[in-house]
């Protein structure tokens, strides 16, 4: 369960199961103590898999990205800036990316972080099961000298640079990159080191600060301890008893559980878009879904506003687009494309020859749970009979990739990069039938190759196409709510679960 949650909904605003929590250790209140001595207590709902580059499967990558530095960095507000590569440059045809590696960095085993190490790491990521799909555009990686890496692409790929700011861009010491020991004893050059003595796999992970990190000043906490707390009730107990000081909840209403005298809270930017992924657009399992009128009817039948207000209790967040509402690609004008209109939906169904509706089976997961009855009702109103099939969490990937379902409800996390998000929604588990159209392929190729100035409009065109063709029936990109204990200042990041940068002790 946790794996899927991590991957697909770690940052979902509505999934209460996956949380990044933080706290000051008892007695280390941000009073007079030096920040270096402060401990930040993070908690996660499930234990991470292993730390090997290319194999990290968690959605919350805080642990992983604290140990490994990445080629590119993403700031809290989503901007990309230099990381291991202090700068990067595309060739004019956008098929060669040149990375200039920062000088003087060292891995925690004292070996230098140089171009060779970056090349080795990227190669490992290109082969790694979890990162491979995001790096398919890379044809080859070479070090031209000790501080320059040349990445040759088989096609222009606008999502590559954002990808290099994520787990796929992690840089590890070549000697242990994919060795067996890397699973639990990673060697990176990140802001923290995994303290093996204070770590018990599956229950507690302790990070201690890496004083040699080139940007060490950005990380005020000397120690970061992540407890694994699977039970939501236990998380709530831990928060209330003062053992944990921060959590994220699904609504402001829920945040009221935490007294204002001890906790402060505020909204976080949308971290995931949830909705129906109408993946069988070729109609091989559910023939009706091949008809764009049916897909549009589905979009029209869903009362997004009502779900957002009542089910999520959010102020805003209803959406019909898969990109982040706060991003540049998001198109406000498109929001009126699918008003809640059952009559129109019914007539579209009739036009498509499904006046009497059809039956569809969707997987029931912990994430879909609270949406199921609403969706059954609203789709039922236009004759679509939904059967929810309870899927053991562990079987979800296999079932979806095995093309068992014509459509399913899921959340997909937002990375802060529209290019990357659009790409993710068209690959892997979100496009198991590999359904595409020549028009879409052309639009994507154009966008990847577009010069920087024209990128936004090019991706807007893709977004518009996806909405008009009703590839999805997005429902909600709701804001989440963070709760932190007094004494901690939390800056909501665009992409959650990447590092501990959002946490700062309140300065006095």
């Amino acid at each position: 369960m946790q794996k899927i949650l991590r991957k697909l909904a770690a940052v979902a605003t509505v999934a209460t199961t996956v949380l990044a929590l933080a706290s000051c250790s008892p007695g280390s209140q941000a009073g007079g103590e030096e920040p270096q001595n402060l401990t930040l207590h993070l908690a996660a709902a499930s234990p991470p898999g292993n730390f090997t580059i290319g194999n990290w499967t968690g959605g919350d990558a805080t642990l992983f990205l604290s140990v490994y530095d990445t080629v590119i960095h993403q700031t809290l507000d989503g901007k990309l800036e230099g990381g291991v590569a202090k700068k990067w440059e595309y060739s004019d045809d956008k098929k060669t990316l040149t990375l200039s590696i920062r000088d003087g960095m060292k891995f925690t085993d004292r070996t230098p972080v140089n171009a060779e190490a970056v090349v080795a790491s990227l190669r490992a990521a290109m082969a790694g099961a979890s990162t491979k799909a995001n790096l398919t555009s890379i044809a080859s990686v070479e070090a031209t000298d000790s501080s320059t890496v040349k990445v040759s692409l088989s096609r222009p790929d606008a999502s590559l640079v954002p990808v290099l700011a994520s787990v796929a861009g992690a840089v590890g010491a070549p000697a242990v990159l994919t060795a067996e020991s890397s699973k639990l004893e990673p060697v990176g050059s990140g802001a923290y080191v995994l303290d093996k003595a204070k770590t018990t796999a599956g229950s507690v992970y302790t990070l201690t600060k890496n004083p040699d990190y080139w940007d060490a000043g950005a990380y005020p906490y000397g120690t970061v301890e992540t407890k694994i707390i699977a039970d939501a009730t236990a998380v709530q107990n831990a928060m209330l008893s003062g053992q944990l000081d921060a959590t994220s909840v699904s609504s402001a209403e829920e945040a009221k559980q935490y007294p204002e005298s001890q906790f402060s809270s505020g909204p976080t930017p949308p971290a995931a878009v949830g909705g129906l992924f109408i993946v069988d657009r070729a109609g091989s399992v559910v023939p009706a879904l091949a008809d764009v009128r049916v897909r549009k009817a589905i979009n029209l039948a869903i009362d997004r506003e009502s779900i957002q207000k009542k089910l999520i209790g959010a102020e805003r967040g209803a959406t019909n687009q898969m990109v982040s509402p706060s991003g540049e690609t998001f198109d406000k004008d498109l929001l009126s494309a699918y008003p809640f209109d059952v009559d129109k939906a019914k007539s579209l169904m009739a036009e498509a020859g499904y006046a009497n509706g059809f039956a569809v089976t969707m997987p029931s997961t912990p994430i879909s749970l609270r949406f199921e009855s609403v969706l059954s009702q609203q789709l039922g109103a236009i004759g679509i009979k939904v059967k929810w099939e309870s899927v053991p969490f562990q079987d979800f990937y296999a079932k979806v990739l095995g093309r068992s379902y014509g459509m399913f409800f899921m959340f997909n996390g937002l990375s802060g990069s529209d290019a990357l998000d659009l790409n993710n929604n068209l690959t892997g588990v979100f496009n198991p039938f590999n359904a595409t159209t020549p028009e879409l392929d052309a639009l994507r190729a154009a966008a990847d190759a577009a010069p920087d100035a024209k990128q936004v409009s090019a991706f807007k065109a893709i977004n518009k196409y996806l909405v008009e063709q009703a590839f999805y029936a997005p429902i909600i990109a709701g804001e989440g709510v963070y709760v932190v204990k007094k004494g901690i200042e939390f800056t909501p990041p665009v992409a959650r679960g990447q590092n501990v940068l959002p946490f700062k002790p309140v300065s006095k």
Partner: protein
Amino acid sequence: MIPFLLRRVGAGLVLITVVTAITFFLTYGANIPVARNILGPAASQEQIDILNGQLGLNRPILEQYFAWIAGVLQGDLGRSYYTSEPVVHALASRLPVTLSVVLLSAAITLTVSIWLGVVGAARGGVVDAILQGISTITFVFPAIILAIAMVYVFAISLKLVPAVGYTSFDHSPGQWFASVILPAIILSIGGIAALAAQIRGSLVDELSKDYVRTLRSRGVSERSILLKHALRNASGPGFTTFSLQFISLFGASLFIEKIFALPGYGTYGFNATMQFDLPAMLGVTLFGVGLVVVMNLVIDIASGWLNPKVRMS
């Protein structure tokens, strides 16, 4: 005594073999998409096949079973599919947590039950009514609800003990105690009523026996009759009940560990099950049954020692 113990060890080994074999064949034989789950949705079929080969999951199940058995005999339970941590290490590091809670709980159960049982047998009336009341309450409210209530009162409101987490004994005995006492008490509640009733019943049975009348006829004090003679003879059935409770304590620790986020072997088993981490699941099963066998043996020895017939045979 020795042949008796050998028989019990033999039965224990059979139990371990049977249970682990059942678990092995049911889980390994269930065609769980292990590799897909490990590698995630983006992995190719080729990668999945390679991983299946590395994990040995493409071999015939009997071959896998014998490989597992061979490993067990060498003290190797394999490695977790996910973290690649040896299962033996993982379980060894979690065992102190579970044992802390379970043994403390067993001690509480035993002490309180004997006290209640003796008082109940000797006094009847009010104590009986109290016992009945307690046992009804514990039957009526599932442990989960009691646990929630107690956490709320003692951890959240009064802040006497932590709500989650475990501190090891080496680190701080005081904090260790604080971190396990509430889970231990909650674990005990269900068992106390049953065991106290059992002890009380056995004591009442013993007290109606002929030898008690004879002892009374010789002027032996009621106190001695109750605490020395009847209790000693009632301890047999009491131990049987207690040993069964001990087994269920290990099961119940699963709930408790989750609610208190204790990194015990129940939590480990829960995560392993949720991830289909087969070696870890098997390891948990083996350890669980092994613990049961060891504990039963300890209890057998204790109750055998109390029973001269068994002791001297």
